[in-house]
């Protein structure tokens, strides 16, 4: 299961990343393995998405969310 496959309001736990470069950036922003993430909303045009992670809101593109593998 990838983060990009979740619907709005659903939660998941980050397991690993498929892209090294992206993972470094995501982890810095507090999105790291073991962390719970929830899809907050999707932008009006369908991309990017906003997720809740580590107590704040982070927006990222669907393509980027696809690199996050959930447990």
């Amino acid at each position, binding site marked *: 299961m990838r983060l990009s496959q979740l619907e709005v309001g659903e939660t998941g736990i980050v397991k690993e990343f498929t892209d*090294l*470069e*992206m*993972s*470094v*950036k*995501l*982890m*810095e*922003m*507090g999105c*790291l*393995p073991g962390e719970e993430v929830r899809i*907050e*909303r999707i*932008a*009006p*045009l*369908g*991309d*990017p998405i*906003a997720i809740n992670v*580590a*107590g*704040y*809101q*982070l*927006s*990222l*593109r669907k393509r*980027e969310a696809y690199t996050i593998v959930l447990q």
Partner: protein
Amino acid sequence: MKADIRVALVGNPNTGKSTLFNVLTGLNQKIGNFPGVTVDKKVGYTTLPDGRTAEIIDLPGTYSIYPKSQDESIVFSVLADKHNAHTPDLVVIILDASNLKRNLLLYSQVADLKIPVVVALNMMDMAKKADIDIDVNLFAKKLGVPVVPISARKNEGTAALKNAISFANKFAFQEDSIDVNTIAPELVEAIGRELNIDNPYLALQLAHQHETLKFLTPEQSDRIEELEKEHSFNSQKAQGAETIARYAFINDLLYDTVKKPVTAQGETHSNKIDKILTHKFFGFVIFFAILMFMFQAIFSWSSYPMELIGDAFVWIQDSLHHTLPPGPLTSLLADGIIAGLSGVMVFIPQIAILFAFISILEDTGYMSRVTFMMDKLMRKVGLNGKSVVPLIGGFACAVPSIMGTRTIENWKDRMITIMVTPLVTCSARLPIYTLLIALVVPNHNVWWVFNMQGLALTGMYVFSLISAIVVAWVFKFILKGKERGYFIMELPVYRMPRWNNVIFSMYDRSKAFVFQAGKVIIAISIILWVLASYGPGDRFAKIDQKFSTSQYTQHMTPDSLSRTISSAKLENSYAGVLGHTIEPVIRPLGFDWKIGIALITSFAAREVFVGTMATIYSVNGSAEKMQSVYEKMKEAKNPDTGQPVFTLAVAFSLMMFYAFAMQCASTVAIVFRETKNWRWPAIQFAYMTVLAYAASFIAYTLLR
């Protein structure tokens, strides 16, 4: 000013860092540059309780010491360079108490550089509201640094923070956060030995960042590169491992110092607002309504103060002519300098109002929602959600906006944003548009609320945005990018705007405009006056001679005679000669030689156009009664046909020309500075000039 202690402010974006900076330094601040880079350096001064003066440097907000953009790269290089004039004695790290976890990553990195640190725990009020309970004493004890709870917005705790700064240690006593030696120990040891660095984390950072650090010699940098190869160092893997270790430390630290409500909170305030503001339909409606309101406000709110400023200068000009003896010096002062000064000052209301809006939109957190909503659309045309802010900023001025593109990490996205930002209607075009619209568009209301002139102006703004998007789309196919773009961005919670910051930004921007653009404009006004008041050879003498014959003096009233003389003189002045020279080229656009003069003089700055018009028509008009430039242009008649010069076709053709032409020396300079290559400003100048001529020609041909 000489300071006793140098303090750097470091923190994540949206933590209230600039609010704290403003609270600490008040208006006692200035903007400079870091040597060798284009990042703005904000420095201010504050007096400590013990009477010493502290210099405070506001470093760009960053989530990590690993830079993602040019702005962020300055943070590490300032902190790490021990032999620089900017090296801080102390770092104040500002942490958002309501979002400690992510904020602590940067803290732990900076702390490991072993620079004395004081923690300012900001937004304590927000944390309390969210039922987050922080044991500040235990927190400080575990970190080994002073921790001062503050609320910068309410100016609470800042006295205690100043106290903590004055009592801060000269040495770094903070606890280690992670064991740096678990990450690439051999490499760290080798770099430490060869470059004589005893801090392992500093050595590790040099391995990561040596390519961009200005304070390393090329030999040192090459040597680090060799060592990396020798120890097969993978920068990204090492960074990932470090981040995981740091968050383990942070989780451990927060475990018994911060208590959060276990149950998930109900829907937050911010979420409710987001449901409306980023709604599929209402989101865009609200966004365009805000833009529309902004332009209407700029147009209508500024008209009264602008009139006032304009009238004041006309009055000054008038009284100078009356009190001083007539002659070239009086004329230079009244028609050259004062006319130019008036052209600068009249801008202030518009700039202030625009920056009030921009600063409110940024402060409330709405700007990042605009980015969020527009990203997909912007990506289609080769831009990036983050390009929205520079583009909207372009409505004020392209210069700071182009500097603002540094937040765009991707090279191609950034280049395209730089290339198209000057197309957006900046505030310098506003007086040209308002003047020309007022001349040819009736001042009626349609549907009760919309003023026709306001609508025409909105039209020009929308048109500029559309042309920027189309040009961006074209550049998307021309430019070749290597790196991939990404869009990982915090959506900060909504907050009330800080009115102090709004007022400060209005003041700051207006001041910067008056002093930076003003110098150029006044210089150009003086040159222009000379060009318009003197002519080559003995042409002026011949005119005087010609009109002194009885043929003229007997058949014309003194008033119309003097006007005829002035007009003949202007046409034969240096400016007139120049205008005539380019007339064949601009004739197809509907412009005469007088407009030609204005095009030449506004070459360096668009706003000079109005000043030029004022000078040309004031030289041309009757000397007894000063009229505003608007009235003079309205009365201007084509000498051949007797028809008004400024018809709908000419006015719109002129507006099209100014919409596209790169008539701004500051933008050319800033694009060079940002791209470090003359090719980019040259390409930009060329494409914009071609578009300007074509659009002008089309507008004139269609409307004639």
